[in-house]
């Protein structure tokens, strides 16, 4: 990078130096100037068709498109300071609206619509298109998959076509017809059911391609967006959880050049359903006279500590590879002193579903986000062996593992079952202590993806009742055992982990940021293999 040629130009008076070959639009972004655009998307090949990003370049007679014109040394570019460019943009906006139904009140995109935004920002207050003229009309079409096409709102930016052609590599969409009769067409014998097709909904700058799943569920301005990491597989796509009140209503990709670029798969988009499940444990439970009864945290933690103090020998930890790295670390700390068998299991689907145009991006067969984290911390994928060990173990601790297929017989041996979970399967009713944990949307934490990238996720909504993050529960338990101070945040838990575990050496929530950092080289190679 250092020896790459760089050029310096001025955009609306802001001087900026960028690598040679950078487009004016991207250079302007870096200079803090947003050049309005529709068809341009950094993750797609340039089309140059919407003509919205026209800018004035001193010494060039005609306006040029910022998305395709390279920045050049000494250029003076005007975006908002050019009346000519403004007039051109106003023209595009007026043209785009003449065939548009102006149905923002019933459109899902309203509030996050680039057409709406730019028209409000700098469009004409009134159209000059006579109300007596007909507008183009085509009926709503179900493209299959999760995608609905509303052609009347379409501005023909062709982002969807380019995504399917060049990124997904499946030629199912095109521009059909010509002139103002044009619309996005779909192959007559095909559906938009590619495992990554849902991205066209995010890519659509207007309300033309809609998610059937999200249709009319919420208005954009009611949503909060929380950075998170997808739990759908071990790829670790960066996402935003969009929440309204206490529900996650959709999951959308959050750009990360190192992991998922701008995309995520349709499987990942469905992970929000698990985050809203209603069958949750809302209070800590302790076994009293053959039944589990609700108790407060102090009492329950004391009981759990008592069980651990009163036992010795072997302990078995059955954990979920979807648990946070912090919790996985603290559980090991809690069970320090026992001879430990620490295991997880992971759901594996048949094969991977790659996104053809992006190297290294795929819906992975391992359907859990923290397999690498659990492995780095010494957990092994040997669930059956651990179950075997549980028969004679002094203590069995379950961390967020759903115990599907596990019978109470298998766990009866020890008699000391401590269960940290979200829901209460029948087999967990034999636990002596049940500690309700929050899910990924309800806590801060981190996962390590299959490439050894440590990535943070943030709390998007509150947990049910008295449920607490597993890291909090386990740190309280450590304090109860006299082996540490209670921790105030996931960040603190991570600091302790980073201090103790070599792979995480030197990392902190601050250094991870929201894009993550890969674990130390030696360890990373091990994880990737």
């Amino acid at each position: 990078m250092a020896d790459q040629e760089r050029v310096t130009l001025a955009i609306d008076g802001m001087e900026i130096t960028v690598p040679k070959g950078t487009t004016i639009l991207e250079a302007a972004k870096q200079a803090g100037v947003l050049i309005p655009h529709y068809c341009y998307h950094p993750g797609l090949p340039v089309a140059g068709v919407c003509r919205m990003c026209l800018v004035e370049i001193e010494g060039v007679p005609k306006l040029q498109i910022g998305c395709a014109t390279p920045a050049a040394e000494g250029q003076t570019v005007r975006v908002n300071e050019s009346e000519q460019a403004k007039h051109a943009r106003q023209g595009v906006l007026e043209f785009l609206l003449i065939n548009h139904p102006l149905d923002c009140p019933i459109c899902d995109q309203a509030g996050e619509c680039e057409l709406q935004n730019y028209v409000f920002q700098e469009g004409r207050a009134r159209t000059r298109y006579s109300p007596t003229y007909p507008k183009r009309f085509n009926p709503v079409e179900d493209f299959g998959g999760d995608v609905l096409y509303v052609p009347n709102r379409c501005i023909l930016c062709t982002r969807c076509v380019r995504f399917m052609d060049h990124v997904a590599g499946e030629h199912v969409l095109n521009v059909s017809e010509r002139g103002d009769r044009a619309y996005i067409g779909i192959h007559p014998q095909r559906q938009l059911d590619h495992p990554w097709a849902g991205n066209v909904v995010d890519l659509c700058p207007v309300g033309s391609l809609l998610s059937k799943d999200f249709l009319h569920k919420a208005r954009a301005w009611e949503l909060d967006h929380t950075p998170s990491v997808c739990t759908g597989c071990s790829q670790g796509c960066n996402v935003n959880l969009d929440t309204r009140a206490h529900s996650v209503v959709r999951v959308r990709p959050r750009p990360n050049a190192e992991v998922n670029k701008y995309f995520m798969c349709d499987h990942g988009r469905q992970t929000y359903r698990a985050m809203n499940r209603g069958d949750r444990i809302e209070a800590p439970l302790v076994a009293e006279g053959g039944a589990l009864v609700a108790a407060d945290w102090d009492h329950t933690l004391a009981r759990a500590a008592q069980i651990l103090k009163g036992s010795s020998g072997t302990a078995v930890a059955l954990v979920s590879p979807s648990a946070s790295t912090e919790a996985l670390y603290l559980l090991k700390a809690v069970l320090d002193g026992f001879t430990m068998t620490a295991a997880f299991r992971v759901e594996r689907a048949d094969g991977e579903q790659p996104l053809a145009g992006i190297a290294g991006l795929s819906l992975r067969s391992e359907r859990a986000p923290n397999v690498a984290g659990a492995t780095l911390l010494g957990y092994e994928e040997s669930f059956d062996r651990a179950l075997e060990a549980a028969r004679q173990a002094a203590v069995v601790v379950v961390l967020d593992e759903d115990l599907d297929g596990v019978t109470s017989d298998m766990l009866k041996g020890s008699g000391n079952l401590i269960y940290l979970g979200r829901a209460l399967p029948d087999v967990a009713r034999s636990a002596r202590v049940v500690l309700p944990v929050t899910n990924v949307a309800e806590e801060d934490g981190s996962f390590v993806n299959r490439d050894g990238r440590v990535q943070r996720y943030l709390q998007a909504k509150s947990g049910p009742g008295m449920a607490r993050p597993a890291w909090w529960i386990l740190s309280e338990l450590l304090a109860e055992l006299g082996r540490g101070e209670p921790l105030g945040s996931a960040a603190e838990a991570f600091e302790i982990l980073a201090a103790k575990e070599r792979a995480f050496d030197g990392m902190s929530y601050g250094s991870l940021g929201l894009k993550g950092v890969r674990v130390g080289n030696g360890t990373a190679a091990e994880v990737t293999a």
Partner: protein
Amino acid sequence: MGYPHKPHPRETLVLSEHFGDSDARTYDGWVKRGGYRALEQALGMEPQAVIDEVKASGLRGRGGAGFPAGVKWDFMPKQKSKRHYLCCNADESEPGTFKDREIMRWTPHALIEGCAIAAHAIRAEVVYVYIRGEFTEAIAVMQQALDEAYAKGVLGRKALGSGTSIDMYIHRGAGAYICGEETALMNSIEGKRGNPRIRPPFPAAVGVFGMPTTINNVETLGSVPHIMTRGAEWYKSLSLSSPKSTGTKLMSVCGHVARPGNFEITMGFPMKDLIYDLCGGMSPGRTLKAVIPGGSSVPVLDREEAENCVLDYEGCVAAGTMLGSGGMIVFDDTADMVYQMMRIAKFYAHESCAQCTQCREGTAWTVRILQKILSGRGEMQDLDLLLDVGEMMTGKTICVLSDSCAAPVGSAVQKFRGEFEAYIKGARQPAVALV
């Protein structure tokens, strides 16, 4: 059709010398008339020498833009690292233009020879002749000539026995005007939708199939053999006005003239003489109202402007229009300019490829405004709106289809405003059948 007409004495017959002579269509007939000597000569020359000769002749693109042909050829990479292609643009679809069709119908070997010379000059081994699909007769004639040329060894691995390999294919268009735009034409050849591409990269760098490509019009390539045999100096001398416009130009004249048809004139010929002398003027009792000189895509000239216009690239620009493809549409005093503009705009609205916003929406909007005026519901502000919409459509898109709609309409609103106002004020009654 009764075409071709007998040449007028004031015509300069170069390209059209053998129009109407069906013997010239055959290989033997063509050779008898001096054919393929130019190719033989060119194949014996260094490619750069051929380019220099064409450059020196001042030959400019006859498809509409008027770009110097030799300069265009010179843009091709000198260090050949990829295949080079030549595309002959025979997708003649510009309303009012019908000259390339005649070249292909009557002198197919002239085009094949011109293509072969150009291919040698730019070192292209493959030539695509992209012919408008509706030109069934021209395609049949061209295909026959091409087969003959192969059979006689003019084309193929060793063109005319030389070391140069030239293959030529006819590609038939599927009915889109926009495919006459050079980058859309390349997409169409590749089997893609005929959408113009953004430039840069220019075709000489990244053309058809991603390879360096030159695209020339039929008339341009048809002129090349004559330049080779008779020399650049001779070609340059064919100019009555600006030294920047040389050679002859086939003018396709249609509309309200007594003798419509193709007329080959020397560059710089007065438009007035073309209309009144060569074309026999208006019908009795009629007077000239307007002329669109370069196919429907250029600004309209009123009578005075037309009568003073000199027919070459510079002369047309001086008159406020363009020579374009040389498809001259003549209107007499019975013409309804509002209706004519609506028809023209409707054509562009139909043919817009739908990529660029201004063109896709602007062409259709223009039609609606004109139809509103024609139906008697127009308002005065619609005229300013027409001009403003036209302004928003000009110079802002990938190709010039959008500009081509705005130019005639805008100029007509300015020059024939009275006719538009007559509809708006109710002085002229809408003719329902027209709309």
